Each structure stands twice: as structure tokens, then as C-alpha cells.
């Protein structure tokens, strides 16, 4: 079978059976490990030497992968990056390159299993938490934090420049830079926030926690107010020294002729422009100690929790638990996670995590051709977004299995979307849960996703396939070579036949074929959906053939079956990919090879916990990277 050698690890039925016995149906990892046990360890090694030796052995080894050095090392730790890289490349049949001698599927399986065995030597009892770069609040976090700090929700950060994105998310410490323009904005925002807060009765109550009187001097009251406000703004108790400096600032401004109120206003503004407010500070006790690993303190954990699940500052209960020194206890952490997910503030996870994970923010800027798709307008654009967010919200709130993302036979629609999907009996604006026709399954067949992965005038099976590989399977294809030829379109294209036929001609080049085979088969499985997600039987004058064959000889007849098949054959890939995304978002840094033990532990917990959403969140929150901090940064992200 032509495609067999692309994902050879799934191919063998006896091995799969073994995996079932182990209780890990379709688990790629289990297959890999089972294979490692069955084979003499030398075979994989010899094959690796044979097929990869020319370029990856000894002096002048390419791509930072030198098997000679890696095999000679008694410890696997220093080479975890290159091992992981070769595991992925060999497994995805991206190595050896198409121009070189290719191993048989059997041989490839043996090589993958052997590399997996090397990776398994990593000692997971050692803590490798990695290091998160100082994160400034992004726009959304700033808005929500101000809302909770002063009690007025007026989104002052909407005027700030947009935050840069790294690893798919806009909360990554390394990428959140602070251009000078932003500092100007911070100053203006602080002025406006404080002006409003001092007018608003609700906000005044939060700020003026005392009133000067016979028993309380003006200065003592001011001190209390500042201590309370700054401690909440800095998300930890303000130090005596910091408090003295704030009081001194108020005094100094007062002496320049300001009123009491103006002095308080200026001092509160200073708190809001202070780096302790704008950045989520996690101090290094020994800043340049290369080996130092430190447990985060309770207040730091409170902030990690609140910004992960709520995109805002900790609430009173988290502060209380932090003050009592209880937040490091796993049972308390789990309890807090459940409380926080049930809180309406967890909507932030929908708006920020889900929207970015599923690339829904691109919806804002897609421009389907109005001549071809007159139904598409801004209203429908919003409906599409809301459907997918409602779906994610449901899985989160009902604590459903994350596999529902792949196979759910339900979704949420209003009248307009129901019409788009051909579902009868839905009237009005309101979104409600409905059963889907058999060909729509899970999030991939939502109109939102089908639209953001299309070009303005036609579908793009390649971008849909690429999107599936990246977002759903967690195995992004490498970028195309610079000289890749584009697809013929227009009149010329008609002569060449269907889109599928044209793409087949396009990938005649072996350099392109390796990846395109994988992408295109997935993308073509979705061809029954037009560029805005409407079901169709024909593209132009050509009937659509949405059947295909996945590696391992697994066939599917259309989009519905494709999703079911993926949920079985690629379940672990999906879980691992989803975990990586969630971990990236939770930590604010890219996932690195050193996170392998963490990922594997989370995978096990998910499997044992019926893949429930809360299990994943709890596993992340109780993991080492979430609770510890290394003084030294790890290598570069592996999700690049």
C-alpha cells in the first residue's frame, strides 16, 4: 500500500491487539513501547546506523542530530531534543529524505520503537520545570484585571496595540514585548481608571476601606488604603518598604500643592503603572544560578491559577488560601480548579484559549467572495464563532470527554446556522443544542473551521489538511520548500480536471509528496463542505469524492467517518497535541522536549480519567512546570 509507510506504526494488527489487552486502545505510545519490548534492541540501532548514518553520524552531522554522540552518551538528558526530533521525523516518514534509500514499514517501525526506547530512558523522577519569562499582562488580561481590581468593566486596554502571538497564543512571556507606545497607553489608562474609580460608588467601596476619624488619622487611613489596593494590584502582600515609598509619593505630591484626592489619585496611578502590576513577577532567589529550581510561593501559584483559568487576578478565596499557605496541596488545588471552572469567569478560557487554539480569531478577517457566497455576512460570521464557542463551553462546563471535539454528534445553532446546515425546526436568534446530520461530526465540521481554512473563492484541501494535522493531530507538517509550485486555477485549471486531480499532479514532485499525501487525504475528506461550510455534492461540474485511505489501510467514505476513524486511530496524537496547546497556554511558554515526562504523565491521567476536561486541567495545575520554576531557560520550543 502506497500510504502504508507514511504512518507505519499503526499498521500491524497483532500489535494493535496487544495494545487492546493493555487497555490502551489505539494508543500510539503503547504500540511503540510494545514494539520496543518485542524486538532485540540492537536491530533498531543497526537500522538507524544504516539509513541515517551518512548524514547523522560523527563529524559534520546535520541538523544537530549526531547519533554517534547520542548513542555513546550514558545519559539521555542532554540529547532529549535531538532524540525527540528524530522520533518525530522518522515516525512521520519525513526522514530519510525522499531522495535516499527508504526503509520498509517493518524496518521503520523498528527504528521508531528503538528511538522511543531511548526516550524512555529519561529519568522522570527529576524535576524539569522549565522557565517562564516575565509575562506582562496582555490586553485581555489587563481589561479583566482592572475589572476585578476596581470593579468597573470598561475595557481600557482595547486601545492598546495588539499583542504579538507566539506558539499560537497571545500570552507568551517571550513574545509580549513592551514598545514605548504601550507605556504611554498605560499612563493614560491609569489616569482614566483612577478618575472613574474615584467617581463610581462601587469602586469607591473597594478602594476606601477606611475613613479618617477621631480614632484613625488621615495618614494612617491613607496607609491602609494604599496597602490594601497595592497588595491586590501586585497580587501579593505589599512590602513595608514599598508601602513607605507609596506614602512618601502621596506626601510629595501633596506638598506640590495637590489636594488630598489628587494625591491619592496620583499614587493609585503609580501603582497601576508599576512593573509589579503590569508584569506577573516570579522572582528568582538566585537570579543567575544555572541549576536552581524553586517551588513557586503560594501567591505566585494563585496568580498562575487565576490567569490560566480566568485571565485575571486571583479572587479573595485564592488570596485567603495563599495567605494560609495551602495552595501547594494537590487536594486543595484540585478543589480550586473545580470551583474556578464552575465560576462564570472561566468564560475567559473559552474566549482566549478556545478561540486561539481553533484559530477562530481568523474569522474576523476572512472575506469569502460575496459573488459566490451571498449568504455570508457579518451576522453569519458572528454566528459561526458563537457556535464553536458554545460547543467548547458545553464540553468545559459539562466536563465532557475531550474526544467530543472529534466525534460529537451534537452542536449549537440558531436559525441562520441551522439553515446553513440543513437542519429543520430551529427558529430565532437563540442558540440551542441540536443533533447533527451524520456527516457532521465534532468541531472540525463546524462552519467556522471550514471557513477559516478556505480561500476567498474556493476550498483549500491543503490548508484544511494542514489545519487538521496542526490543530487536531498535533503533528504540523514541515513548511514547504521555497520553490514549491502553486496550484493552477481559473480557465487553465478546468482543463486539468477536478481539484483532486490537479493536486495529484501537483504532488508528483517527491519532495512535496511526502507531506502532501498526509495533508491532502485529510483535506479531501472535508471536500463536501464548501468554503463557508455548506454541504455540497459537486464542486463546479465535478462530483465530489470525499473518501480516502489513512495509513494502516483504514478507509473512510466521507467526513463523518473520517472523524470517527481519527478519534480511534489517532486518539493519542489528539490528546497529546491538545495537552501541549493547553500547557503552552497555561504556562505562557512554548513546550520543550524536557516537558516529555510531564506530557506523558498527563496522558496517563487523561486515559484513566475517561478523557474528561477537568482531568486535563487538574493534571496541568498539579504538574511540575506549573508549580516550580527553574532559574535557567530550557531549549527552544519544539512546537515551532
Amino acid at each position, binding site marked *: 500500500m502506497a500510504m502504508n509507510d507514511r504512518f507505519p506504526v499503526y499498521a500491524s494488527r497483532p500489535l494493535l491487539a496487544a495494545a487492546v489487552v493493555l487497555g490502551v486502545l489505539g494508543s500510539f505510545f503503547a504500540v511503540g513501547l510494545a514494539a520496543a519490548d518485542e524486538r532485540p534492541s540492537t536491530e533498531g540501532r543497526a537500522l538507524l546506523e544504516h539509513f541515517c548514518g551518512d548524514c547523522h553520524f560523527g563529524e559534520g552531522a546535520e541538523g544537530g542530530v549526531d547519533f554517534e554522540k547520542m548513542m555513546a552518551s550514558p545519559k539521555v538528558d542532554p540529547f532529549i531534543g535531538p532524540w525527540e526530533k528524530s522520533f518525530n521525523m522518522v515516525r512521520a516518514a519525513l526522514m530519510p529524505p525522499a531522495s535516499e534509500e527508504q526503509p520498509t514499514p517493518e524496518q521503520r517501525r523498528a527504528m521508531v520503537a528503538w528511538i522511543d526506547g531511548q526516550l524512555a530512558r529519561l529519568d522522570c523522577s527529576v524535576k524539569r520545570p522549565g*522557565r517562564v*519569562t*516575565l509575562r506582562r499582562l496582555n490586553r485581555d488580561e489587563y481589561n479583566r484585571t482592572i475589572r476585578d481590581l476596581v470593579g468597573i468593566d470598561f475595557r481600557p486596554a482595547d*486601545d492598546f496595540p*495588539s*499583542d*504579538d*502571538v*507566539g*506558539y499560537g497564543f497571545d500570552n*507568551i*512571556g517571550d*513574545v509580549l*514585548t*513592551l*514598545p*514605548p*507606545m504601550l*507605556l*504611554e497607553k498605560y*499612563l*493614560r489608562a491609569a489616569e482614566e481608571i483612577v478618575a472613574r474609580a474615584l467617581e463610581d460608588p462601587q469602586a469607591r467601596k473597594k478602594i476606601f476601606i477606611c475613613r479618617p476619624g477621631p480614632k484613625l488619622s488621615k495618614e494612617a487611613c491613607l496607609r491602609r488604603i494604599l496597602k490594601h489596593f497595592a497588595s491586590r494590584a501586585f497580587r501579593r502582600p505589599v512590602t513595608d518598604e514599598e508601602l513607605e515609598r507609596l506614602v512618601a509619593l502621596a506626601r*510629595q*505630591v501633596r506638598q506640590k500643592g*495637590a489636594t488630598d484626592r489628587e494625591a491619592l489619585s496620583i499614587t493609585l*496611578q*503609580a501603582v497601576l503603572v*508599576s*512593573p*509589579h502590576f*503590569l508584569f506577573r*513577577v516570579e522572582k*528568582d532567589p538566585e*537570579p543567575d544560578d544555572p541549576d536552581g529550581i524553586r517551588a513557586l510561593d503560594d501567591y505566585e501559584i494563585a496568580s498562575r491559577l487565576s490567569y490560566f483559568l480566568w485571565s485575571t487576578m486571583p479572587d479573595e478565596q485564592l488570596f485567603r488560601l495563599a495567605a494560609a499557605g495551602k495552595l501547594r496541596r494537590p487536594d486543595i488545588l484540585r478543589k480550586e480548579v473545580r470551583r474556578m471552572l464552575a465560576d462564570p469567569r472561566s468564560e475567559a478560557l473559552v474566549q482566549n484559549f478556545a478561540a486561539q487554539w481553533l*484559530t*477562530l*480569531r*481568523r474569522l474576523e*478577517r476572512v*472575506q469569502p*467572495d*460575496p*459573488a*459566490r457566497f451571498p449568504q455570508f455576512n457579518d451576522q453569519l460570521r458572528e454566528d459561526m464563532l458563537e457556535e464553536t464557542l458554545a460547543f467548547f463551553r458545553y464540553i468545559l462546563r459539562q466536563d465532557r470527554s475531550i474526544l467530543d471535539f472529534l466525534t460529537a454528534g451534537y452542536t449549537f445553532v440558531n436559525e441562520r446556522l441551522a439553515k446553513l446546515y440543513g437542519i429543520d425546526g430551529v427558529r430565532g436568534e437563540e442558540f440551542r443544542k441540536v443533533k447533527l446530520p451524520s456527516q457532521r461530526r465534532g468541531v472540525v465540521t463546524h462552519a467556522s473551521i471550514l471557513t477559516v481554512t478556505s*480561500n476567498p*473563492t474556493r476550498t483549500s484541501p491543503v490548508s484544511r489538511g494542514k489545519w487538521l494535522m496542526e490543530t487536531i493531530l498535533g503533528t504540523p507538517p514541515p*513548511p514547504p*520548500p*521555497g520553490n514549491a509550485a*502553486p496550484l*493552477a486555477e481559473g480557465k*487553465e485549471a478546468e482543463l486539468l480536471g477536478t481539484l483532486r486531480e490537479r493536486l495529484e499532479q501537483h504532488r508528483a514532485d517527491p519532495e512535496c509528496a511526502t507531506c502532501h499525501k498526509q495533508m491532502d487525504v485529510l483535506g479531501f475528506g472535508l471536500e463536501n463542505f464548501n468554503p463557508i461550510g455548506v454541504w455540497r455534492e459537486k464542486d463546479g461540474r465535478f462530483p465530489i469524492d470525499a473518501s480516502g485511505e489513512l495509513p494502516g489501510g483504514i478507509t473512510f467514505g466521507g467526513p463523518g467517518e473520517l472523524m470517527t476513524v481519527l478519534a480511534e486511530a489517532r486518539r493519542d496524537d489528539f490528546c497529546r497535541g491538545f495537552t501541549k496547546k493547553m500547557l503552552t497556554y497555561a504556562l505562557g511558554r*512554548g513546550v520543550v522536549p524536557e516537558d516529555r515526562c510531564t506530557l506523558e504523565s498527563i496522558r496517563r491521567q487523561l486515559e484513566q480519567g475517561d478523557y474528561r476536561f477537568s482531568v486535563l486541567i487538574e493534571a496541568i495545575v498539579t504538574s511540575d512546570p506549573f508549580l516550580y520554576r527553574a*532559574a*535557567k*531557560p530550557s531549549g*527552544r*520550543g519544539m*512546537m*515551532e
Partner: protein
Amino acid sequence: MSYRIDRRTMLRGMGAALALPALEAMLPAHAAAMEAPLRMAFLFVPNGVNVNEWFPKRTGFAFELPPILQPLEKFQDEILVISGLTHHAGRPNGDGPGDHARCASVFLTGTQPRKTSGAGIRVGVSVDQIAARHKGQETPLPSLELGCEPGRASGNCDSGYSCAYSSSISWSTPSTPLGKEVNPKLVFERLFSQGTRPSERRQRRGLQAVYQKSILDFVVEDARRLSRQLGGPDRRKLDEYLAGVRTVEQRISKLEQRTKEELGPQALAKPQGIPSDYREHLRVMADLLVTAFQSDLTRIATFMFANAGSNRSYRMVDVPEGHHSLSHHGNNAEKLAKIARINRFHVEQFAYLLDRLRSIPEGDGTLLDHCMIVYGSGIHDGNRHNNENLPIVLAGRGNGTIDPGRHLVVPPETPMTNLFLSMLDRFGVSIDWMGDSTGRLTGLTL
């Protein structure tokens, strides 16, 4: 759409301002009395061009304008079309694909960006920011960064390059992309944060002088203390913070020195938001750029017409396809024609900007005479993704230091940064090299 802007209102406002007899009095004193200050701007368009219809056939004076450049006909005597400039650092040089992200971050830096989608972004300091570092303190704003598309909000930007690379051409340090402002309303507020009425400005300046400085002193001390407790990468973040504080401080002190008459046209109406029409959006941004130059609020600007690799469609010129998809044209005649239409549309907006600059009298000439405006793309042909022979136009007479009206052909592989060095010389910033420069560009004057 609720935030559709009424640009006519704004233009009417500006027209009124221009018609005021006391205009000269509102301009900075030196504009009339002394030699006008020199301004520089850099305009970026994405995805290369249809090269068959961009490069003039003849060199020297009186060259025939090729179709894409025809909107510049009125300005033929004010522009220098330059062929042959190259951004070597935009090539893969072993880093593999990602030409779009690379070409934007290289465009004004001439430096190869480090390939990363997150940790450790790094390229060079851009030419506008080199100028701003040396001369920016002479105006309230050291520089102005404009655009029409916000930084991409999700997903991988380009083959493993951080989105910062494809959405920012201005870099104030090798690791600080400045981004850009895309909302005309916010640009306006930034330019006229002191208010547009003199009385309002006086009042606010008073408050700010006394209090804002206290806030800044306080937070600088905070940042210094904190910095001592942090490791390397975190300290760099605080350095960015401190650099921001210095910019604001400088601005406050600059404004204190100005008299009330010096600041900007009073009748400029405030834009209401981002126009839904792209042409309007480009033009409002151009208006603001012109106003900033005219009022001497800044002398340095960058303007990204769109982000690198932008897949926007251009229905106003009958191109429903995405620009980036089209740019992989495979020499298909139909696609090439569409690309030329997009290119020409962009050049029309460039012509609009030049028109505005030339309509403003300044000293013994026009504002355009006191400008150096670079317009171009970091890619030659979108299909080939190549970085030699870039499509570049230099407009303005640079205070008489440039002889335009010609098609200048420089030797192959001449670094684009050589042009930048020559511009910096004229700007009064003399440095030995930047990026991959090998010397000065000769031929800007006869």
C-alpha cells in the same frame, strides 16, 4: 457598521485648517524662518509585485512609467525609481522557508531574523529607529509607526517565525518590535494627546509636568529595584519598560519647550475608528502621517500597507482572490494581471500621500521637498520569493540632497542598507554600517 468613519468630515476639517490665513503662524517657528527639517518615511507593501509591469525599461531621466507606476505620473519629477537593491538577509541562508516573515523584519533592518516562533526573537535595529535614536529627541514623538492590519492574533505566522516578524518593520532594539497603530482614532489621540485646543493643552501640560513626572520617577525606581532580583531574560523585559519611560519623559520635556502656537492644525477633526473600506483606511492613515510631519510632531514614520504575506482580497479593483494566494501566480497571465491591479491600487494610495505632501507649502517649497519617502516591498516576485532587485521608489528631494525624476539602476546585489546609510547621512546621522551594508549608495544626486 458602527465604526465607519466619516472621512469627509475629517478632510473638511483639515481643509479648513489649511485655509486659515494664520497657517504659517501655526507651523513650527523654524519651518518658516530656518531651513525646513528633513523628514523620512518608509512604506511597506506585501508579497512582492508583478515585476513585468513595475520596472521601467529605460534608465535616467524621462523614462516611461510602466503600468503599475502610472498613478505616479504627476510626480515623475519627484521620484527616483531604484532597481537592483537587494536584501541578502531576506534569503533563507540555511533557515528554510518563511520568506514573508523574513522580508518584513529584514525590510528596514537588513539583518537576518532568528528563526523562532516564541522564545528569543531577534533581528536588528531598523533604519527609522536608528534615526529616532539620534534625532528623535528633537520632536515630541521620536517616531510614528502606522499600519492597516493588526498583528495576527492566532496561529503560526509563517513557517516557524513569530508573528512579530511579519507584522512589524520597526524595531527599536534587536528584540523589540514596535508594532504599529492601525486605528486612526488612536493615532490622532497619540499625536494630539495634549488636546487640540491651546487652552486645553496648557492646562494638561501643567498637570502632567507636575504629577506625571512623579509617577514616572516612582515606577522607574520600582523597575530598578525589581531588575536586581531577576534573571537575564526577565531583566530585558524591564529594560523595554525603562526605555518606554524614557520616551515618555522626553516627550513631556519637549512639549514643555513648545509654545502654544506651535502645535498642529487646530481644526483637524478626530477620526472615529477604523474605516471598513480599505482605501479609506489607507488614506486616513496617510492624512495623519502628513499632519504629523506638517506639525513637526515627528520627522520619522513607517507605514505598513498590509502585513507580510497578507491574504486580503481587493474587490475594489475586481480581485476577489487573496493577495498572498495570488502572488504564487505560476506565471499565469490572469493572475499576473490581477496582481498588477493590486500593486497599482497600492501605488495610487502612495500617490495620494505624495499629493498631500506636495499640497502643503513649507519654507520656499512644499513639504514633499523636505521628505525622503521610501516605498516598496521586501520581495521581488511573490512567485519566486526572491530578495534581489527589489521594487523600490524613493520620493522627495530630501531638502535638495536628492535629484529625483530618474530611473536609477544600481549594480546587482547592492545592499538595500546602503540606501539607508545614505539617507541617514542626509538626516544628520552618520554611522559606519548597519545590517549588511557595504557602503553608501552613490547616484542619489547627479
